């Protein structure tokens, strides 16, 4: 039986303090700080504290983590080691270009490789995360239309889109027009009806969040082009098509990638990630500055573009993440990336064959690629919901799928096994999912019972926010 470590771990401020010496603060009295209520602990106690906490956490290294749309693939350890160097860490962003030729070369090479993988003409590595890439892309959309003397204020997204798509479009000042899906794909009639001279861009994930490839992509791109709008590729699902097809060839004008998904850099409990943005040649001049250029054998920053949207983050992007992705691409190569995609799609289809049945149904017909969404609505009559299945999976030491997304599927469970898992691991996952569907409903509803805590009262957390340790006493 699976058990996660479970400590009644005190908060840092509840651990017994060690006395330390007096520090003479030489600051003018008017602004000198009197009280500073931070803990004074021994290194021994601090390390023990955080090791205990790490043991109450589940990562890809712990086991299967098939969160749909998140591409939780294994993070090769070489990547971590490659980034542990003073030549990565102890580099100041304002250093003379002659002293950072290594960093510039890696970024330059990575940009080129991403162009090859996606079929785009230029990349910027500056965006820090996927949503940040989307925001950057939307700023480029705006700059492009403005340079044509046009003010277009609508961005179209399908109802199956990630939440970040409409949020990013709004942040760039666009109105969001959501169109319904038909049979799990873009409804061409709805798209045609929504497209107008006012459309700035259409944002699309392909394959979409249901794991279905948008077969009509060439038709979609023609229609979008016809009204003078741009086609935007949300790269969250690139893992499904590497070496098989390229967004650039599908007619996408702008793409963002998630290096922390497709290119195996770890998610870090939410970040740091990297969300590079690639564009077709005619949009290159709008990319953020600086660009990295190569003169002869030397690399340098180029700030000269007059059309650039400027900066989207403080410096040049999350360099260690970029380096790890570069190492991953070198390691995999053209053959390895294609194989990763084939294996990811194969694993997903294998898992479908094992999971879809009387308990879990697959809404919409057709093929699935690297991920799929099942509906657990058949379990409702037994009083079991998708959330209950998810929580019960924890009892078996397995991370659940993404649940209740996309919104267009009732009791949705979105599963992305990635290429990393063995057939044995997939068999086991399917076996447990099916077993849970037949377990005593009461047990499932009360799960988890093997995790460090049982289900949390999220309503209480929102109603009565306790957001720091001082709030407990209030």
């Amino acid at each position: 039986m699976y058990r996660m470590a479970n400590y009644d771990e005190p908060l840092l401020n509840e651990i017994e303090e060690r006395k330390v010496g007096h520090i003479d603060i030489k600051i003018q009295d008017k602004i000198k700080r009197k009280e500073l209520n931070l803990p004074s602990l021994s290194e021994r106690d601090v390390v023990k504290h955080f090791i205990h906490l790490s043991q109450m956490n589940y990562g890809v290294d712990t086991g299967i983590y098939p969160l749909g749309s998140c591409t939780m693939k294994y993070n090769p350890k070489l990547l971590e080691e490659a980034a542990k160097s003073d030549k990565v860490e102890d580099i100041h962003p304002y250093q003379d270009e002659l002293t950072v030729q290594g960093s510039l070369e890696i970024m330059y090479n990575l940009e080129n490789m991403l162009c090859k993988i996606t079929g785009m003409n230029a990349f910027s590595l500056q965006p820090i995360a996927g949503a940040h890439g989307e925001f950057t892309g939307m700023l480029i959309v705006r700059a492009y239309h403005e340079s044509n003397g046009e003010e277009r204020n609508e961005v179209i997204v399908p109802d199956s889109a990630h939440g970040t798509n409409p949020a990013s479009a709004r942040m760039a000042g666009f109105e969001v027009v959501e169109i319904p899906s038909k049979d799990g794909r873009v409804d061409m009639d709805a798209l045609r009806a929504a497209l107008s001279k006012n459309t700035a861009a259409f944002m699309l994930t392909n394959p979409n969040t249901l794991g279905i490839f948008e077969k009509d992509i060439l038709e979609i791109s023609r229609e979008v082009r016809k009204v003078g709008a741009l086609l935007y590729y949300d790269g969250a699902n690139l893992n499904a098509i590497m070496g098989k097809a390229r967004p650039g060839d599908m007619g996408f004008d702008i793409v963002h990638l998630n290096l922390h998904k497709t290119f195996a850099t770890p998610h870090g409990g939410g970040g740091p990630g990297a969300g590079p943005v690639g564009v077709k040649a005619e949009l290159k001049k709008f990319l953020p500055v600086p660009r990295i250029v190569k003169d002869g054998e030397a690399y340098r920053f180029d700030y000269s573009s007059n059309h650039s949207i400027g900066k989207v983050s403080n410096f040049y992007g999350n360099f260690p993440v970029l380096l790890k992705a570069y190492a991953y691409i070198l390691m995999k190569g053209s053959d390895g990336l294609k194989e990763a995609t084939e294996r990811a799609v194969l694993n997903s289809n294998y898992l479908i064959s094992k999971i879809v049945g009387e308990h879990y149904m697959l809404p919409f017909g057709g093929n699935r690629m690297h991920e799929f969404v099942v509906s657990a609505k058949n379990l409702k009559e037994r009083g079991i919901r998708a959330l209950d299945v998810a929580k019960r999976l924890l009892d078996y030491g397995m991370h659940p799928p993404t649940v209740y997304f996309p919104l267009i599927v009732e009791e949705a469970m979105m599963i992305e096994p990635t290429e990393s898992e063995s057939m044995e691991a997939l068999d086991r996952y399917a076996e447990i999912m099916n077993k849970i569907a037949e377990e005593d409903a009461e047990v499932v509803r009360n799960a988890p019972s093997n995790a460090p805590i049982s289900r949390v009262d999220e309503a209480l957390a929102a109603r009565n926010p306790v957001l720091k340790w001082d709030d407990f006493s209030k």
Partner: protein
Amino acid sequence: MEKLGIESIDELFEDIPEEIRIDGIDIPTGKDEIEVEREIRRILKKNKSFEDMPSFLGGGIKPHYVPPAVRHIVSRSEFYTSYTPYQPEFSQGMLQSMFEYQSVICELTGMDAANISMYDAATSLGEAARMSKRVSRKDIFVIPKNISWEKKSVLANYARNAGIKVKEIPYDSKGRADISAIEKYAGEELAGIYLENPNFFGIIEDRIDEINEIKEKTGAMIVMGVDPLLLSVVKPPSEYGADIVIGDGWMGNPMNFGGSRLGIFSCRKEYVRQMPGRIIGATVDKNGKRAFCMTLQTREQHIRRGKATSNICSNEALCAIAFVSYVAIMGRDGLRKVAMKNMENAKYTADKLLSVGFEMPFDGDFFNEFVAIPPVDAEALNKKLLKKGIHGAFSLGRHFPELKNALLYGITEMHTREMMDKMVEATEEAMGDV
């Protein structure tokens, strides 16, 4: 494949229209681990790190010590290979650490709530301007002329499409933002005012009463950009009117060429529901046991989609774990010791530079950065120093034409007496040649 009843892997990709199908990518084939490792090392060798070449660059980012225990903690793969903690029962470790991070930020800043991070200090500023507008429903956001140009550029991108007008105020003879210039915006439309402590020139803010007064007069939100280390020894921004406190969360995180650092974001409790980003709250589980989870999620994109306070999803969570473990390892007095060491070292270097003929244009107290003007051409001086294996200070002239020959020095606990002496010696020598 057998079990799926397919003969070729291509059958799984048949939805891709034939005319765009490709077979492979035009990059080299895969390499062995050992080859990759060698290749990466070969390229990185071309970099000169702080270890190879002491650097005196300022500009809001500087070398600081990262204790080995911090490295060890963030190398725990249960932390670094986990996703955003959507399943709290399996993520208590990350969630409690994040809650502790929020607590530490609030203690340093005096704010009531902090999120788990923005991408960096510049995007924190962009989000703070947007939040000021959401709270105040007004649209002018005032910034000092002397902040980094990168921050201004990022801010412009975050502000412009939200209908926010950014206005600049000049700096005074002490190098501080001239806050009296804000009064002319004291009409109806002032949403927020951004100030820094220490500011881009390294000057420590000591106008507590004046800032409170401006706040009262204008009714604007005060956004403070801070170095968290300075806050261990000076009064928290809550005492001089701050409503939102942001900054570069460098603690426990190396310089990394400027990336993989976190943006601090904290605010007063009345505005917490307008905050961007992930927030962790304490609650109880079904058995009444203390537990942590993400909270106030109705602000966020995965729930509210287009109506969210921000589009942020991935953040810099692991950097926040590095931050809180740094604070825990250093402890209250350890932090203060480092803060004093930074100030002492900066003062030592500045005095030495003055003694060889430099001038300091501003006479405000400074923390670990300061502006100094050499008696010779600054850029030429830097080139000479580079040849001697020393990286000189940041040249301000490119972005502040009125400070054409000024250099911005950054000095921390990483700079030994020997490094500082050597740099000044080399500077004096180079001055003769320039």
